């Protein structure tokens, strides 16, 4: 716990750095002297940095909660069809009610995300507990099917290009007025921390939960609700971002174990750090052009995931 201060300081330093990375060069020494620069800061740079931090923390916390609900450490909302279901919901609402406000899109996306997650949990409840690697595989197949369905519909309705913006997450379009929904993700993350013990107990299994007097179904539904909401918030505002929810909770688990009360602050800070780092890499590697953060994470995250798979198969939950 002591070192979380270090992680927060690192996150703060990286955030400050992020404010000065962009096409328009701003000198650190006198940025406040030009009103143009201040506008740029408040319209683009600060919103973008905040959006990255909120998204990273939210994705990582969602991953940790989902791993408790599924009792498997190789799942996250974007690898088991939850984010894909949210994207399908956005596509459907855009087709059926074009021009509906963002909040309507978000609600529909949450509903479809929740349905997708419920289908996934129902499927894995039939799998034998002795083969934990089947769970992420079923998730990948399911998310592939939902994604294929979405692409098919988008293709038939000539919405493919539009669909691409939800499928691949990136922050270049973030401006003041277009990211504020993400604050709700922050609220949901705090809410998760408040009931962290209940999710930890759910992760111990149904019998342990009942024994400790928990209303198992109710807590699972609350968890599904939080997950569906924060996943669709991220998909609606920045698009799908892979691997954060998978990699970060696994690293935190190694350090802190499964007690969410202790590990969630780490999960949130590390998630924000990882996404901020990848966003910066995406902005700098081909400067002044950008590589979407999802692409950078796909490359980095898949290596870390492979490492986690091979490093500790005996402890796969």
């Amino acid at each position, binding site marked *: 716990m002591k070192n979380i201060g270090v992680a927060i300081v690192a996150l703060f330093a990286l955030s400050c750095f992020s404010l000065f990375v962009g096409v328009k060069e701003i000198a650190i020494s006198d940025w406040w002297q030009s009103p143009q620069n201040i506008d740029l800061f408040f319209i683009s740079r600060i919103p973008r940095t905040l959006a990255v931090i909120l998204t990273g923390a939210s994705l990582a916390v969602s991953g940790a909660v989902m791993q408790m609900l599924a*009792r498997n450490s190789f799942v996250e909302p974007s690898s088991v069809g939850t984010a894909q279901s949210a994207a399908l919901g956005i596509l459907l609402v855009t087709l059926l009610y074009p021009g509906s406000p963002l909040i309507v899109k978000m609600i529909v996306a949450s509903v479809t995300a929740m349905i997708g997650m419920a289908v996934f949990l129902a499927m894995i409840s039939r799998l034998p*507990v002795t083969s934990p690697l089947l769970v992420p595989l079923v998730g990948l197949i399911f998310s592939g099917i939902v994604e294929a369905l979405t692409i098919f519909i988008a293709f038939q309705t000539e919405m493919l290009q539009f669909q691409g913006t939800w499928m691949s997450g990136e922050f270049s379009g973030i401006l003041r007025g277009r990211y504020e929904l993400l604050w709700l993700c922050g609220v949901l993350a705090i809410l998760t921390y408040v*009931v*962290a*013990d*209940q999710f*930890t*107990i759910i*992760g*111990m*299994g*149904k*019998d*342990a939960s*009942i*024994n*400790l*007097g*928990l*209303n198992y179904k109710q807590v699972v539904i609350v968890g599904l609700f939080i997950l569906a909401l924060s996943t669709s918030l991220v998909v609606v505002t920045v698009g799908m971002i892979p691997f954060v929810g998978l990699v970060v909770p696994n690293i935190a*688990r190694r350090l802190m*174990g*499964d*007690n969410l*009360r*202790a590990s969630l602050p780490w999960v949130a800070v590390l998630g924000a750090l990882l996404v901020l780092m990848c966003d910066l890499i995406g902005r700098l590697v081909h400067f002044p052009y950008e590589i979407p953060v999802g692409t950078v994470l796909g490359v980095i995250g898949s290596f870390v995931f492979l490492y986690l798979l091979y490093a500790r198969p005996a*402890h796969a*939950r």
Partner: protein
Amino acid sequence: MIEINGVSHNYGKSKILQNISLSIKESGITALIGPNGAGKSTLLSLMARLQPLQTGSIMFDGHSVSQTPTRELAKTLAILRQDNALSSRMSLRDLVGFGRYPHHKGRPTAKDHRAVEEALDYFDLQDMSGRFIDEVSGGQKQRALVAMAFCQETKYLLLDEPLNNLDMYYARSLMKRLREIADTGKRSFVIVLHDINYAGAYANEIIALKDGTLAIHGPPQDVLETNALQTLYSMKITVTQHQDQLVALHHL
């Protein structure tokens, strides 16, 4: 007092329990014995409301397990399961601490911390309390789970084969401790035991199940008897006496 009334249970077509009715007295140790597949674990999990009752009723001090809110029952009874698929990566201290959850609901007080430390001391876990559950031996994990159930401070403790994974030293010391606690008169144990001699030596009463029916219910001397045991387990068992203790020679 635990009252079990007309409890039957089926999985599909196979009858696991058939019309079980019995009452278990307050305080003391009750051993639940019987051959594999007799329905002991099912009965225990029905008592602990881990599965819904199909027929009949189970009451703890007059509170029905199917009607009392589960968070209230968590302060009355605790269960230790046999097939513990617990795979959470948690330090032993945190694990034992979760036994206090029904009391503090996520906000532990000084009293809860004290109870955890006492349980760790009592079950010899203090030295390894910081280690993760997936880094200790099967026996240490088992002791931690018993400590967790103990920490829940419920009047009734249902333990499904608590001696699993324990060596002779810890098996005996656990039974002695349970006996000690039972003798204070504050808590009652219902324990599924496979070793009939432990049941004979430490229990006040023994309940024997066979093929889902109640075979014998009585004090140890009624059960540790050559004919009774031979019928129960369908094998040749000699019962002998060592000093004033009945001993079943089931391993010869």
